[in-house]
């Protein structure tokens, strides 16, 4: 018998990192460049502080292990929806899923040659308001907002939030069908193929917000393995007027890229601001 932790006035219907200061949510593939006729990869998904270490919570993903139970101490969250797209556009189902104390794990059978995309995308509203003198926080869908947030809430601030997390994997020759963006939220449109990254070389990407170039997106890139060094080694950059960023990888390894942009434009009521974020785990090989 476990205890579901319920938060008053809080219905957390989506799983989102709350802000840049919160823990990082990431997927870590066992490899991103595969050769051979019958490759598989295994992917770990976790929420943690350090990259890429499992020390906080597993990422709960639908159909990856039994996500019906919530370990004690965790907020009630709905499991994330993982979409894996094959080079031909078809969906790949995760196999052998399991959820443990600190990570979820699943396998993917890469039966086609080409580039695959793993994506977890969310969007919804985030509201803060005062009730009986206390600040309350709420997260949920636009539909639930009207029902769950009191209409007379004081100091109500509503933000539209969207997030997208991606991993790219290539079996054999890379191709670019899966690199197409959806036109919703903050996305990365690769100029350099994400499975063609080598230490010492510069990679170029374009940030898009709702399909249009996102200028001024704050991007930071952190190399994995920070347990064994003092400096975080963060590479900070901002997208230019065309939404472009260029990153020169100092070393081989796995990197976590996070991009964020805030805007008050094009936001529909009840939200007054939108915050869009994008993250990706990128593998950089030695030259």
């Amino acid at each position, binding site marked *: 018998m476990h205890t579901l932790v319920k938060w008053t006035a809080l219905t957390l219907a989506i799983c989102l990192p709350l802000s840049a200061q919160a823990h990082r949510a990431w997927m870590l593939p066992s490899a991103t*460049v*595969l*050769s*051979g*006729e*019958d*490759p598989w990869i295994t992917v770990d998904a976790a929420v943690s502080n350090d990259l890429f270490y499992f020390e906080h919570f597993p990422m709960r993903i639908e159909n990856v292990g039994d996500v019906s139970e919530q370990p004690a101490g965790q907020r009630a969250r709905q499991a994330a929806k993982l979409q894996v797209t094959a080079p031909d556009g078809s969906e790949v189902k995760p196999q052998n899923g399991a959820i443990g104390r600190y990570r979820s794990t699943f396998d993917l059978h890469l039966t086609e040659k080409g580039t695959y995309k793993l994506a977890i995308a969310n969007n919804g509203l985030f509201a803060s308001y005062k009730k009986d003198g206390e600040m309350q926080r709420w997260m949920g869908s636009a539909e639930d907002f009207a029902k769950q947030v009191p209409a007379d809430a004081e100091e109500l601030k509503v933000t539209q939030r969207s997030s997208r997390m991606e991993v790219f994997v*290539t079996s*054999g*020759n*890379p191709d670019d069908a899966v690199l197409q963006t959806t036109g919703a939220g903050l996305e990365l449109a690769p100029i350099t193929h994400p499975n*063609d990254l*080598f230490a010492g070389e510069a990679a170029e990407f374009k940030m898009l917000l709702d399909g249009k170039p996102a200028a001024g997106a704050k991007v930071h890139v952190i190399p994995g393995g920070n347990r064994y060094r003092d400096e975080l080694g963060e590479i900070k950059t901002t997208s230019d007027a065309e939404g472009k960023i260029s990153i020169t990888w100092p070393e081989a390894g796995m990197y976590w890229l996070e991009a964020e942009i805030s805007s008050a434009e094009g936001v529909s009521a009840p939200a007054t601001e939108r915050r869009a974020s994008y993250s990706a785990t990128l593998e950089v*090989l*030695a*030259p």
Partner: protein
Amino acid sequence: MPKRLLMPLLALLSAPALAAELQLEVEIPRLQVAEYHRPYVAIWLEQPDHSHAANLAVWYDVKLKDKEGEKWLKDMRQWWRRSGRSLEMPVDGISGATRAAGKQSLSFNSDDAPLKQLAPGEYNLVVEAAREVGGRELLRVPFTWPPEKTESHSAQGSSELGQINLQITP
């Protein structure tokens, strides 16, 4: 010129030119390790900007069933990136079994592919080796094609490759 020399001279001038040759010696080092596996080796020609020109040889485990040996082709990282990943293995005349430790010789003639199609210019001969439960090494030997005179070039590896000797003759 005396008439008796004219015919042989004409014959000599109209005879086809002898094919240029590229002779290569790749040394696979003898290593004292607990678990030794013959390395995967890829040998190719590239232009100075590293764009791929031609494959010369790829040695990998061709004997495993279900082509399982292809699983580690990607460990020859540069070859995989520049050429391997767009190939269907095996490739006739290029791919073959892994070779034992020692000096492995290969020779190529400009009458045949791939030298036949090789445009004149600067090239690098590249040798990349990756060994199971071992390391990986890549060596480049620059040369000009076609050679105007017999030339020898070499490079020395330090771990997974020994000496690479390249001799090109016009």
